[in-house]
């Protein structure tokens, strides 16, 4: 016979305990591998979902404004395009609110795609052209369901009206920012047909509509234009592609694409550089001058503005253009604050040089007000209406103004009193149109009328030599390379790479489920170790015989190790099947019971061989570790004690061995010797007292506010748990007991309780395991958040605000002023609801949700910029910040106004988002557009505590305007309103501002949505922890089984003296119940103390139902398991244990 034969025989003969070991290992592997599969599955599901929705898109070129549709073809025909890319497709992408005309059902946050047949061809669906035509519109499936739309239904799509003119300038059309387009639904486009097309990753339902590109261009007055280009990759590997696209873009773009106009002014023998937005910013001006200088051309700069009045000597001229000129044109401007009037204006005013002249003009102030300002000048000269003074091309084009036939036809975006217009003003307009009536110095004009958008309206370029036409061409060629299209509004990003990176997820579900499943794994390994130990101890005599016949201890260990390894491998194979089941069950859970944690039902199980292998390896290693630990204790035992099969009892040197008085002192296992040492109970008692005092001290400290309440009570609960365990340990090891006497079920039960003192260490271990697990499962409830009621505390997570709102279209008006409300139709007399309501406005840059609601890792978070009012208010509570000065410590919001450290702008984030979603800490930087040439660096300087800003980063308004100049107006609002008025105010705002897509929500609802995610994680932990606890009670039953087997001789004696099976069952169950009860009560009591502050702060509400059920299941399972173990143990005859031979 060989060793392998012995192994095989052992394997089969001891199949019961071996099976138990295999099942233990299988459970551990199933749970470990299953948990890792959950992580893989979530990642893979997110990835698959993203790629399905992205189609063939790899890179994206987009702009806040519009560029030529032709740019896509120009890119595609570039010689280097085909080396890395497949195709380019232009389209229009806009955010919209969509309304079902008949039912008035509304969908907000809808993506509108203006597409044509190129879109479907781009995504490889040439044969399935779904292009809508004329007024047709296709909807994504979820939007169609949400609106309840059918074929032919009228759908209204409201989008922001494109305008190159900055909204927050005098000529920006602030009340008319949107455009409603009417379409006819052609049905829902299934997801498989790109009906859920989305460039950005999102796990929730996609709300999208597809409309004809041409129709959308016409409706938006952007014929031949697009704002997005999709680029497909030629092959795998996206890493360097954004930079390549930027290079191609720099070669392919034209001035028109970045809103730059170059006019040839034959009459003035010059070129005029202007923009679609009617202002030339400093960067463009600098490039323009440099390009001109390179060609030897001269430049002159101009700033033309509208004056409401030019007044002098009691006379006034309404609505006149005034141009600020540079030194090249300032010949007639001398003296202090000079102004030059043309002869028409001078005559009309009756002014002569030296007279005081004042200009009244509108100025748009950033917070959202139109002011009338006045500037004083001294008339320095009068210019004849000829030459440079008769230049009508000095004014930029203002829609609604410069193209009008008469002044009365003007349609400006600011108030105008038509009654002031005189017939001679109309005559001037008819004859001279936009010819300025007055001229001032450029510096003065820039001082009065310069804005963040620019300080010029045009730059003229004069040829040094050569003709104008050739200058035009050469200047265009010279200027273009100096411009960076990305800095001028075109952005390039790698949508696919970013989305795939985001698909790795903000939350590692694999890691979370490993933590959640910790107790199950621990219990399974405990069972594995226990059963293996049980198996070994059942074979002590066999081991003794092997030792007696000459097997060295190492060989025996190796035998058992090989056996254990075989069992572990067998268990892991079974476990892998279990892993699929466990993983599948967890994914089902995430789609159903725990759907609040993920916000989607689209997650499915994906099988990853690597995770299975890791889980199997982890399970095998852990099981082997348990087995090695068990075998470690085997070595010290002598063959004789092994042969006796009872090697735990310490024998005394009184000849009781009958072998010449040899004293045998086999070393014992990890449990304590049976004879209580006089020292041990004392030390356990001392420890108990010490921990109790520490716990009381912590309670006192918490009551006196030396320590935070939560920390104090939690710490006290933990210390009390340890103290109680020490007390129980001391009690178990003590010897003073009340005598067990009498007859009936109670004394037998007491005997069962007393049996727990047989192995005090083992009993304490069982109690400690159950108590610890119970404590954790109950105490985590302290972290459950409850935000049912609106909290008006300004230091709460809602900042004391009752409502928050977001609008699709930007609002520039100040809703806190009468003028602002009136301009938005909110000032009607019956709107007393808004009396006393104040609005705190934020600028908003759309981006990824950085809260726990988004499963995808945010790469480009949404950014909010509060105004000074919020920063000064000091509202909301901070968990931590980089505040240094006393002022900053009192109000960390002030950190936003600090200087950018090393070029990184300071931002504030919510602490939860910072830690668990962005995985950053204070002082760290978050970089947007990292792979581009224009990254934006943001540095975290403050962490808000459980705030409603969990989805955003907060930036100062100044830095926001600097970094994101294209984002105009305000789109996020926090509203102060008494809770009892909140519903009414919400209804009024949503109705009156529906054209802006104004969406109002109670702040506690937003907080509740975050808390739901956290609470779901806690519930998952409690459920799985509870399962682990249940499994742990099986371990307890196994311990009892061991106890029964170890005490077979005693139990045999009891049977001999008349105990029947029911007495044994009662004894063992009583012992188990005692251990269970001690563990559960200890853990629960200490946990309740730990969560007392949270309990009372929530008004005394605990999820007693779910917790109670959980603990009841633990009790029932534990008792049932002990019953089964007892019956199984007692099934085999006890009496042979009594035999002397």
């Amino acid at each position, binding site marked *: 016979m060989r060793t392998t034969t012995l192994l095989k025989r052992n394997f089969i003969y001891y199949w019961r305990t071996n099976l138990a070991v295999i099942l233990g290992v299988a459970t551990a592997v199933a749970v470990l591998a299953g948990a890792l599969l959950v992580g893989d599955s979530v990642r893979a599901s997110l990835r698959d979902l993203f790629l399905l929705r992205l189609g063939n898109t790899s890179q994206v070129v987009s702009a806040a404004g519009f560029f030529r549709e032709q740019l896509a073809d120009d890119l595609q025909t570039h010689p280097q395009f085909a080396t890395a890319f497949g195709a380019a497709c232009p389209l229009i992408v806009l955010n919209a609110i969509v309304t079902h005309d008949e039912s008035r059902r509304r969908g907000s946050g809808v993506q509108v795609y203006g597409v044509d047949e190129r879109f479907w061809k781009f995504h490889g669906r040439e044969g399935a052209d779904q292009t809508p035509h004329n007024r047709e519109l296709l909807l994504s499936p979820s939007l169609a369901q949400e609106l309840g739309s059918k074929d032919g239904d009228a759908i209204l799509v409201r989008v922001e009206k494109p305008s190159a003119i900055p909204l927050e300038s005098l000529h920006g059309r602030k009340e008319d920012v949107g455009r409603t387009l009417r379409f006819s639904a052609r049905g829902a486009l299934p997801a498989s047909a790109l009906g859920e097309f989305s460039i950005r990753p999102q796990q929730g339902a996609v709300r999208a509509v597809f409309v004809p590109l041409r129709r959308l261009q016409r409706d938006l007055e952007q014929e031949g234009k697009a704002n997005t280009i999709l680029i497909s990759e030629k092959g795998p590997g996206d890493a360097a592609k954004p930079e390549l696209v930027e290079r191609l873009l720099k070669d392919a773009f034209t001035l028109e694409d970045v809103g730059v106009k170059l006019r040839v002014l034959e009459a003035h023998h010059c070129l005029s550089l202007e923009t679609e937005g009617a202002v030339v910013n400093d960067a463009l001006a600098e490039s323009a001058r440099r390009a001109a200088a390179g060609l030897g051309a001269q430049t002159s700069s101009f700033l033309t503005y509208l004056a409401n009045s030019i007044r002098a000597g009691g006379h006034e001229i309404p609505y006149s253009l005034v141009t600020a000129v540079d030194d090249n044109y300032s010949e007639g401007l001398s003296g202090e604050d000079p102004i030059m009037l043309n002869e028409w204006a001078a005559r009309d005013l009756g002014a002569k040089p030296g007279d005081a002249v004042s200009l009244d003009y509108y100025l748009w102030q950033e917070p959202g007000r139109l002011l009338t300002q006045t500037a004083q000048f001294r008339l320095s000269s009068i210019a004849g209406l000829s030459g440079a003074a008769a230049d009508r091309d000095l004014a930029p084009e203002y829609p609604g103004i410069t193209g009008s036939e008469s002044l009365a036809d003007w349609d400006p975006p600011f108030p105008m009193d038509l009654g002031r217009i005189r017939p001679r003003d109309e005559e001037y307009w008819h004859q001279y149109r936009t010819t300025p009536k007055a001229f001032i110095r450029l510096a003065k004009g820039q001082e009065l009328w310069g804005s963040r958008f620019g300080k010029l309206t045009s730059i003229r370029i004069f040829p040094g030599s050569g003709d104008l036409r050739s200058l035009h061409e050469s200047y265009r060629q010279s200027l273009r390379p100096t411009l960076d299209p990305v800095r001028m509004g075109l952005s390039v990003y790698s949508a696919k790479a970013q989305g795939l990176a985001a698909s790795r997820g903000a939350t590692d579900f694999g890691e979370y489920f490993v933590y959640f499943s910790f107790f199950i794994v621990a219990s399974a390994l405990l069972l594995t170790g226990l059963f293996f130990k049980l198996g070994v101890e059942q074979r002590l005599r066999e081991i003794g015989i092997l030792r007696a016949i000459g097997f060295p201890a190492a060989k025996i260990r190796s035998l058992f190790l090989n056996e254990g390894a075989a069992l572990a491998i067998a268990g892991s194979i079974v476990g892998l099947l279990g892993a699929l089941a466990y993983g599948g069950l967890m994914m089902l859970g995430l789609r159903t019971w725990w759907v609040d944690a993920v916000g989607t039902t689209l997650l499915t199980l994906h099988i990853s061989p690597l995770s299975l292998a890791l889980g199997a390896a982890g399970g095998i290693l852990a099981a082997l570790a348990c087995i090695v630990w068990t075998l470690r204790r085997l070595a010290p035992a002598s063959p004789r004690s092994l042969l006796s099969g009872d090697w735990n009892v310490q024998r005394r040197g009184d000849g009781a061995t009958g072998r010449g008085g040899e004293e045998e002192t086999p070393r014992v296992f990890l449990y304590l010797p049976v004879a209580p040492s006089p020292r041990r109970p004392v030390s356990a008692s001392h420890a108990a007292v010490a921990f109790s005092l520490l716990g009381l001290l912590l309670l006192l400290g918490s009551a006196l506010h030396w320590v935070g309440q939560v920390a104090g009570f939690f710490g006290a609960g933990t210390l009390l748990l340890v103290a109680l365990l020490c007390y129980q340990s001391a009690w178990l090891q003590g010897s003073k007991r009340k005598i067990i006497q009498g007859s009936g079920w109670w004394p037998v039960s007491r005997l069962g309780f007393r049996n727990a003192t047989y192995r005090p260490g083992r009993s304490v271990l069982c109690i400690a395991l159950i108590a610890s697990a119970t404590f954790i499962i109950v105490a985590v409830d302290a972290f459950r958040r409850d935000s049912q009621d609106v909290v008006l505390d300004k230091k709460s997570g809602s900042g004391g605000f009752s409502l928050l709102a977001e609008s699709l279209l930007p609002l520039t008006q100040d809703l806190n002023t009468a003028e602002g409300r009136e301009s938005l139709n909110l000032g009607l007399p019956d709107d007393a609801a808004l009396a006393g309501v104040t609005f705190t406005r934020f600028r908003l840059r759309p981006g990824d949700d950085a809260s726990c609601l988004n499963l995808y890792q945010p790469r480009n978070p949404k950014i909010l910029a509060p105004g000074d009012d919020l920063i000064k208010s000091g509202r909301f509570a901070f968990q931590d910040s980089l505040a240094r000065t006393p002022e900053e410590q009192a109000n960390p919001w002030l950190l936003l106004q600090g200087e950018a450290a090393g070029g990184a702008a300071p931002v504030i984030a919510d602490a939860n988002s910072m830690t668990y979603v962005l995985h950053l800490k204070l002082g760290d930087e978050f970089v947007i557009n990292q792979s581009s040439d224009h990254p934006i660096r943001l540095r975290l300087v403050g962490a808000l505590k459980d705030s409603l800003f969990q989805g955003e980063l907060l930036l100062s308004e100044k830095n926001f305007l600097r970094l994101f100049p294209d984002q105009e107006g305000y789109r996020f609002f926090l509203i102060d309103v008494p809770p009892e008025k909140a519903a009414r105010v919400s209804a009024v705002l949503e109705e009156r501002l529906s054209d802006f897509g104004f969406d109002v929500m109670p702040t506690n609802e937003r907080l509740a949505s975050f808390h739901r995610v956290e609470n779901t994680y806690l519930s998952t932990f409690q459920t799985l922890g509870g399962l682990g606890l249940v499994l742990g009670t099986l371990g307890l039953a196994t311990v009892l089984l061991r106890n029964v087997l170890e005490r077979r001789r005693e139990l045999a004696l009891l049977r001999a003296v008349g*105990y029947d099976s029911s007495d044994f069952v009662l004894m063992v169950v009583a012992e188990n119940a005692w251990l269970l009860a001690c563990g559960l009560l200890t853990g629960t009591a200490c946990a309740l103390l730990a969560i007392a502050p949270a309990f009372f702060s929530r008004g005394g509400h605990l999820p007693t139902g779910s917790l109670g059920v959980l603990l009841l299941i633990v009790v029932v399972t534990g008792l049932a398991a002990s019953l089964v173990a007892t019956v199984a143990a007692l099934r085999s005859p006890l009496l042979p244990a009594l035999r002397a031979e």
Partner: protein
Amino acid sequence: MLEVTDLTKEYPTPRGPLPILSGISLSLSRGDAVSIMGPSGSGKSTLLYILGALEPPTSGTVTLDGRDPFGLTERELAAFRNKQIGFIFQDHSLLPQCSVLENVLTPTLVAEADGGYAERARSLLDQVGLSERIDHRPAELSGGEKQRVALARALIRQPLLLLCDEPTGNLDRKAAEVVASLLLELHRRQETILIVVTHSAELAARFPTRFELIEQQLRQA
């Protein structure tokens, strides 16, 4: 009265039944004390266990006080053993977590009624010379002392039949002498039927009636 009639015991094995006892008959009354000797594996303990209703015979009958224990239900049998039979084994089988007094009281916990056994237990412990040790645990006793506790435990219910399987097997000569003397003394006082299985010729010699179990048969020595 203990009546054993034509008792046979066989153990089933894959190779056919293994005979252990064959046609054993015995009749003992109160006050009788017998020893049974025999070589190892002769079936002495098996016979003891059958007499103590711990194992059923293959054939034959055993009656104690006119009752056939093997005709009883499990519960009735347990109650029968609890009331009628006391056991002492080579290994005392005391409960280590209970005190000396509690160990003696162990059989009374499943008695049908509380019959004031605490007093009797103290009395028995006094008789075996352990009245000073009632609060001690078995681990604090010598082998001989433990066996004396086992003796007191076996007599707490005033059984009719007292069965001992190598009661002095684990003791040295002196302790064995003490235990043997106590055993016989208490048997005499309680007027039990005492049956002792032993290897010890010295112990066996102290019994008025001696049997040998050889080749499955019980013969009087």
